[in-house]
């Protein structure tokens, strides 16, 4: 295998510097939980976590473990399992710098980075207090129409895109299927780190059906084969359901920081 393959998630994230901005996937897409554990193990600090556009367990784990300095997102919760306890607690204690967004603004910011342009305009948003908290979102007059204010979203260029995908081939191409937000993240980010369920024999790009859902290798920095790398979250391409008892146990434990710490220690062991 070429040298972009890593033996463990710990090697995969070894170079992620404190203070890096990291784009991560939403729970319905490809969340790299095993790699998240590796970030916690290496005691990453002051991460600027960018949820694309929302996060759940992954953000809650990183926040509770003290890895996150800035949380940029359209929302954080645990889906059917309710509020994200550490996120909620840390924000309420004023321990987390929030950069609240709305879903399409995060997609648009990444698209601006993908296109190498400084901003992309977006409809809506006007009148929202989000504009007060996001001085980087500017309101200009649409040059194409008289008296038509419109919001500009600046490019979001993450240092790292981190996600879990179904397949990679030996050349380093990564198959994400319809989960195109993962491709967008890879296009926009400086470096892309991926855990995968399985290795595909052959070239993903020479099969015309697989190619349609493939991120070409030249966007991908490192890959780690890590089957189940999304557990306890579900992974729909693999038909895997979320491990509900495990998430419920997490929610119960993480109600307090002490409970979270104990749960995490056990989980990392």
């Amino acid at each position, binding site marked *: 295998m070429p040298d972009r393959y890593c033996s463990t998630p710990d090697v995969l994230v070894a170079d992620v510097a404190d203070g890096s901005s990291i784009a991560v996937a939403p729970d319905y897409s490809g969340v790299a939980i095993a790699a998240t554990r590796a970030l916690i193990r290496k005691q990453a600090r002051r991460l600027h976590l960018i949820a694309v556009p929302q996060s759940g367990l992954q953000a809650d784990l990183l926040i509770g473990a003290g890895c996150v300095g800035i949380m940029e997102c359209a929302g954080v919760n645990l889906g059917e399992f309710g509020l994200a306890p550490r996120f909620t607690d840390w924000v309420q204690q004023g321990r987390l710098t929030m950069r609240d967004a709305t879903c399409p603004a995060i997609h648009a910011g990444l698209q601006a980075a993908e296109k190498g342009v400084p901003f992309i305009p977006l409809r809506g948003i006007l009148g*929202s207090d989000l504009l007060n908290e996001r001085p980087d979102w500017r309101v200009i007059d649409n040059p194409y129409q008289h008296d038509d204010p419109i919001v500009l979203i600046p490019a979001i260029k993450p240092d790292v895109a981190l996600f879990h995908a179904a397949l990679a081939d030996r050349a380093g191409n990564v198959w994400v299927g319809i989960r195109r937000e993962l491709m967008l993240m890879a296009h926009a980010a400086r470096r892309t780190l991926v855990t995968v369920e399985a290795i595909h024999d052959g070239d993903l790009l020479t099969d015309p059906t697989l190619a349609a859902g493939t991120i070409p290798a030249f966007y991908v920095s490192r890959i780690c084969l890590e089957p189940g790398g999304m557990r306890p979250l579900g992974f729909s391409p693999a038909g895997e359901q979320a491990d509900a008892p495990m998430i419920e146990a997490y929610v119960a434990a993480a109600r307090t920081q002490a409970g979270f710490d104990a749960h995490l220690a056990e989980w990392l062991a």
Partner: protein
Amino acid sequence: MSGVDPARDGYTTEELLAIVMGRLTTGLGHIAVGALSPLPAAAALLARELSPRTEITILGSPRHMRFTDGGRELFDCAAQGRLDAFFLSGGQIDGQANINLVAIGDYVKPKRRFPGSFGSAYLYHLVPKVILFRQEHSPRVFVEHVDFVSAAGTSPRNVYRPGGPKHLVTEMAVMDFDAGPGRFRLNTVQPGYTEAELRKQTGFTYALPAEVRTTPAPTAEELALLRGPVREELVHAYPKFAREAYLAP
């Protein structure tokens, strides 16, 4: 949550709310439902049963998503005018239909933090028929002014805004929103409630119709659809909800 309300005649509050929202969206081209919205999802599924040409999208349910361009497609779709209805909720909702999904108290160190605005700040402006839904009807939720405006109920005339709030559905009432005066008007009170009770539980003032009517009870056909095909589909989107909380057995 799952029992038949004794004040009602053979249906639960959840069933009533799903049916009311299904009625409000029947006949539309494309109805989308956000993640974590089991009752709106049931409503959309019901609307599709009642008007088979209706397309529905339920975020987070692979079976009910026809998107192939990643997370942005729903939002692009809305801006293209290909989405007719969406459901939003709020930790707080005020009399101008502003919704708060962010925080109570100070933004930097809030008394209470909610998950976040998600797509609300955008979809509220672009989807022609937005239905506000919050089951709990209390002065804690329905306030005079929200602490944080995630998405604004109304906009100045010069703001491009093909969409906006049209109705509010709660366990106590169905209201209509009139963007002109920027104010809710009572449509019906839900069976079992009076307008006086409603007023007490609502932190903002609203306009009244000439005569206060009660929401028509679910029909046998509506209930049969909800308990049959809709429930069967809903299991794919909300396994936990459909199992534990949704309908009378």
